[in-house]
């Protein structure tokens, strides 16, 4: 007979990366009885292995490394006495009533049933793997995701190879290209399927151009070749439909392949209890409190939408905690006449999906295609922002005040669009 410990909470936060830590701190500050559940043996998530600067410029108005950024939150957690569980795996979530969920957790102290009014889900994202990007061929040693390479190098101090080819030009891949180059490995190429880079322009400059690393846009790795260890990759040009062009193949000898082919929100646990997913973000459909279609279940950070700034991840964590308090105070988010937020010209996605128009909101969006000299506009409220450049890699974040939104009180929707400027 297994003894099960039953505990009651206002809010259970799943995942102790920056979104979860920020959510747990905010929830505790708001007086909610909170616990943070993490399956690894340490708090902090990905920033703990981000040794490069560029973090905290918005949140702390300082340029910090990922490590410095996350330690500031550890200190705050400790000061507030935020309760947390490490090495604890969420087995399942049960929905009992609109204001009651049970989170079954397997912990080193035994099995726990955490009864809670609200759930804040901040389990981050997973990396897209080689079988998802149609790279065929051998499966020898020497194939890593960018995140795995980062853990090896920047937590354990192990350089996984000498001659590297990076597939995909997402930010983690670019950051790792620089780290490999700094540590004396030769980065022979970064191969990007699309005709534009996947990562931030600043990372193309300071991670690739600074170290003379060639970036092949509109190219694809068609095969990995190697017996025990990776020996080479076969690369081909792609046509406008992104299909490899026959006769354009060439070889790049290397001993290591690093995959930086993007992130996918980690939501399996919530999909099992009926979460509705937005096909464009691959995250949940949410309202302005970041509440999903399941009452009292909030999602923040990269589990909500793939962010390029940790500052936004933290902002979402805090917002979800405020949503949780509002939910508890009102025994559910009061039924409101929600206005849908819709995608206009050249907008790939926009989050949140529903707003009340009665409260300040922050919108996060990405464009579909790179474009120069444009205006980003929300026509229903007459809001406009001129931009030299918009790129899919760079998220657009817009804060709209309640006063501004009142202009759209009779509109049935809010939309964002990118239009060429004259």
């Amino acid at each position, binding site marked *: 007979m297994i003894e099960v410990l039953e505990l009651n909470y206002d809010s259970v936060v799943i995942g102790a990366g920056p979104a979860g830590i920020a959510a747990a701190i905010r929830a505790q500050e708001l007086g909610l009885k909170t616990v943070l559940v993490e399956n690894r043996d340490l708090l902090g998530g990905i920033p703990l292995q981000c040794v490069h600067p560029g973090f905290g410029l918005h949140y702390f108005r300082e340029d910090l490394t990922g490590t410095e950024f996350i330690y500031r939150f550890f200190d705050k957690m400790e000061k507030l006495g935020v309760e947390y569980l490490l090495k604890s795996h969420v087995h399942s979530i049960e929905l009992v009533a609109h204001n009651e969920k049970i989170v079954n957790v397997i912990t080193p102290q035994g099995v726990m049933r955490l009864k809670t009014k609200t759930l804040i889900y901040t389990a981050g994202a997973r990396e897209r793997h080689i079988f998802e990007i149609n790279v065929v061929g051998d499966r020898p040693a020497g194939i890593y995701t960018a995140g795995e390479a980062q853990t090896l190098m920047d937590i354990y101090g192990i350089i996984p190879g000498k001659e590297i080819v990076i597939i995909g030009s997402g930010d983690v891949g670019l950051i790792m290209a620089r780290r490999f180059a700094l540590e004396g490995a030769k980065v022979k190429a970064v191969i990007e399927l699309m005709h534009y880079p996947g990562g931030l322009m600043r990372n193309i400059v300071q991670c690739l151009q600074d170290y003379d690393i060639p970036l092949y846009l509109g190219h694809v790795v068609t095969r990995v070749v190697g017996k025990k260890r990776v020996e080479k990759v076969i690369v081909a040009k792609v046509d406008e439909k992104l299909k490899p062009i026959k006769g354009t193949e060439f070889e790049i000898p290397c001993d290591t392949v690093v995959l930086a082919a993007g992130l996918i929100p980690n939501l399996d646990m919530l999909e099992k209890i009926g979460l509705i997913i937005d096909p464009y973000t691959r995250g949940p459909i949410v309202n302005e409190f970041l509440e999903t279609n399941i009452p009292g279940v909030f999602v923040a950070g990269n589990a909500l939408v793939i962010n390029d700034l940790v500052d936004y991840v933290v902002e979402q964590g805090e917002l979800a905690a405020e949503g949780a308090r509002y939910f508890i105070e009102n025994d559910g988010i009061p039924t409101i006449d929600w206005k849908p937020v819709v995608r206009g010209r050249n907008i790939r996605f926009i989050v949140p999906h529903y707003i009340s128009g009665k409260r300040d909101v922050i919108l996060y969006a990405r464009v579909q295609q790179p474009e120069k000299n444009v205006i980003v506009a929300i026509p229903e409220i007459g809001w406009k922002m001129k931009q030299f*450049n918009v790129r899919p890699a760079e998220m657009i974040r817009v804060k709209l005040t309640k006063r501004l939104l009142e202009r759209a009180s009779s509109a049935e929707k809010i939309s964002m669009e990118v239009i060429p400027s004259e």
Partner: protein
Amino acid sequence: MSERELTCIICPASCTLKVSVEPGGSLKVEGALCPRGVEYAKQEVTDPRRIVMSVVKVVGGDLPTVSVKTNRPVPKKCIQEVMKATASIELKAPVEIGQVIIKDICGADVVATRRVKKVNSM
């Protein structure tokens, strides 16, 4: 240099900056969302500098390495010198954030950016 286009690397906004020389010889910077971009562009065309980051081995700690960075940007041509210096070091736990690991190299200090707590070995 009549005109040069740069991408600002100060923050992820990645502003596209246009730097040109004014008739008087001073530098004109367009396209920056903040004054730091103007500063960056002027620095980049005259004396490019970068923050350098790495990890350094630690013995007896709860993590096997501590992450480090230069506390200010160093000239681009000095990057390898900093990397060589950090590669040859081994530290003993504990290490605190901000602790100086190498003093005065290429006009900067190398400082710790992670905390490594001491653990008692068996």
